[in-house]
């Protein structure tokens, strides 16, 4: 009995000690004290970098071999929206975030608002690199400021029209160049039993790409407060257009990225897809039976003769606040996203479409692609990349905005409500969400 009492006492004391130690090791982790300056560090540096791009380790290996004094440890995991962004936030709070992270353009404002990113504008190399990038991609990382840079653009997703050239030819339907022609073609295709395209209820960032092409804006930030407007003139035009197609059963509405959706393309039921450059891989994998029958053309325009393009996707490499090695991190990020070896490696393993103007000229992107009948599809995308407006701004809570608008879209597709109403509802809930997080909203 006495043994037990003593043992219990020791155990209790040990637990208490551990708890106190854990509690007392201070609130903040180490915050880099060189927050503003971008100076080289002394001695050898090891950077941690989290990314989910397949094959990123190969590109990093190239750097590590050439730079023995700046070694990069890369860590992979699920994609950003599948948990890694949330992990970044948790790690920022706990003080052990990596030095560098892969962040998509539409998530950057969220991190910025939470003060999670270092300002790379303090680094001379970064500021000098601006000219290497396609102009609108730089706008995606400067977040509307003059001198601040919150990430190095890595890739972009200019949108174009993937279409079944064989079916269009067989049935004598001209490839649409305007949205009006697109609707006319949709009617003809419906008469033949097919659908011109599938309207996705969940790819709100694709829909945002349409609005982007039309010249619309959803968010604006004048430095003090955010303006949220999902129901502007261009957004309404786009929403009404697609609502019309849905109501007249001119587009299918399978949930995107499912077996049904893949099958719809694979069986030839659906003839086109308005998608980004990385969609080339998705079609090739999801509809392998249709190899050789596809081509890529410029996206349909709102006015004949115009050439505007939207963007879907794209990511940057950002440096998290609290890093001790801002200079080295910026140097690595620049190398990864501008050097030819890195971009070639990323393009090979992950079909990354570079955001640099030089990257658009990569040898790998100058060749014809077999799946598309040998067409040099990347020429179309290179052109589209130059036609994306540099003014589009993402809001600070895009995950929530996407989710709310998607709920509304699902209702619209099943017949209750319209896409425009979904956007209006999304606008209201986004404003509420911003206010709930004490983010200033302009009235």
């Amino acid at each position: 009995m006495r043994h037990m009492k003593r043992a219990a006492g020791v155990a209790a004391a040990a637990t208490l000690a551990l708890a106190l130690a854990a509690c007392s090791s201070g609130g903040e982790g180490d915050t880099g004290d060189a927050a503003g300056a971008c100076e080289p560090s002394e001695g050898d540096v090891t950077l941690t970098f989290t990314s989910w791009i397949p094959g990123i380790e190969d590109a990093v290996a190239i750097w590590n071999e050439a730079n023995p004094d700046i070694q990069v440890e890369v860590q992979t995991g699920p994609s950003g929206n599948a948990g890694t962004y949330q992990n970044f936030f948790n790690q920022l709070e706990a003080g052990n975030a990596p030095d560098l992270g892969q962040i998509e353009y539409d998530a950057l404002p969220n991190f910025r608002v939470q003060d999670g990113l270092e300002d790379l504008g303090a680094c001379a190399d970064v500021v000098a690199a601006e000219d290497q990038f396609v102009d609108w991609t730089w706008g995606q990382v400067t977040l509307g400021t003059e001198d601040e840079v919150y990430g190095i653009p890595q890739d972009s997703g200019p949108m174009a029209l993937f279409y079944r050239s064989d079916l269009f030819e067989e049935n004598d339907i001209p490839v649409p160049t305007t949205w009006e022609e697109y609707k006319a073609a949709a009617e003809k295709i419906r008469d033949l039993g097919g659908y011109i395209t599938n309207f996705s209820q969940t790819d709100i960032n694709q829909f945002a790409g349409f609005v982007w092409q039309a010249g619309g804006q959803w968010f604006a930030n004048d430095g003090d407060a955010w303006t949220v407007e999902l129901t502007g003139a261009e957004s309404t035009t786009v929403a009404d257009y697609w609502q019309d197609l849905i109501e007249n059963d001119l587009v299918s509405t399978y949930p995107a990225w499912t077996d049904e959706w893949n099958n719809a393309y694979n069986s030839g039921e659906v003839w086109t897809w308005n998608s980004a450059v990385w969609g080339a891989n998705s079609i090739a994998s999801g509809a392998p039976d249709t190899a050789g029958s596809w081509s890529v053309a410029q996206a349909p325009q709102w006015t004949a003769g115009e050439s505007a393009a939207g963007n879907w996707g794209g990511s940057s490499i950002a440096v998290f606040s609290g890093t001790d090695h801002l200079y080295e991190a910026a140097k690595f990020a620049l190398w990864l996203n501008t050097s030819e070896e890195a971009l070639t490696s990323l393009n090979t393993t992950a079909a990354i479409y570079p955001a640099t103007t030089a990257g658009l000229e990569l040898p790998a992107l100058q060749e014809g692609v077999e799946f598309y009948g040998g067409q040099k599809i990347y020429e179309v995308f290179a052109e589209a990349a130059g036609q994306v407006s540099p003014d589009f701004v993402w809001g600070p809570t895009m995950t929530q905005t996407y989710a709310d608008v998607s709920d509304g879209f699902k209702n619209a597709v099943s017949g209750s409500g319209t896409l425009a109403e979904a956007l209006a509802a999304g606008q209201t809930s986004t404003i509420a969400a911003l206010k709930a997080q004490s983010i200033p909203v302009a009235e």
Partner: protein
Amino acid sequence: MSRTAELTASGRRTPRAARSRGPRGPRENPISRTAAMLVMGVFTLYFLVPVWWLLVASTKSRGDLFSTNPLWFADLAFGENLSALLAYDGGVYLRWILNSIGYAGGGALVATLLAGMCGYALAKYRFPGRELIFNVVLGGVLVPATALALPLFLLFSQVQLTNTFWAVFLPSVVSPFGVYLARVFAEASVPDELLEASRIDGSGEIRTFFTVSIRLMVPALITVFLFQFVGIWNNFFLPLIMLRSEELFPVTYGLYAWNSTINQFPELRTFVLIGALLSIVPLIITFLLLQRYWRSGLGAGALKS
């Protein structure tokens, strides 16, 4: 005598009459029996059809996956899928399976030992604070693991244990439900007289526990092991929050990571499917091997011998 026998016969069968007919349970209505079988059949199908689909889908090449009948085989490509899976990314999948076995197997073993000892102590010894401890532990059963993951992450960050093997292992060795089960079972199946006898024989408490009591508690301990094994194997949120390096992922989290990039890298779809199929094999084996203990354990604690 016979008169009283007849009087009782009016209410229910006499023991003698019952004995002559042979033991019989409550009368079974054939309709209710059919209905019960039907419901069970439906649920069996409901649970097994996805597993069957998984098996069939794992044998198909990517092109066949969407264009052929989902519930029957097309051209068999199982071998190629398997070798592609094991070779992808430097054989990381096998590493993930080993990690899962480490976390779940090792964690469940330690958890069973700790829960068994704790339950036994709560059942067999009287000490101040005994009921309080038990009630607090029982309260722990109510807290879902997901709610604890983030505070654990912050705690582990303070001691720099995140992104290590221990980040997932240590929280897994805690099983409040196991303590409850062990206590109930120890109370029922370890007689105090036996403990008295072993004390008289001069055996210390720890020795008694390991040589005598554990053997009596085996069914309960196996049950705790199984529950904990499955719980740790399926525990998703903890690895999601704690781990960053691919080499430390359990197989569930690894497959999820692949699956999250399928839209842009569709080649991973086949790997996810066949990886999922292979990952349920250790669980099935564990259950099949241990199920006789589990079945006997469920019933044994209910009877007072």
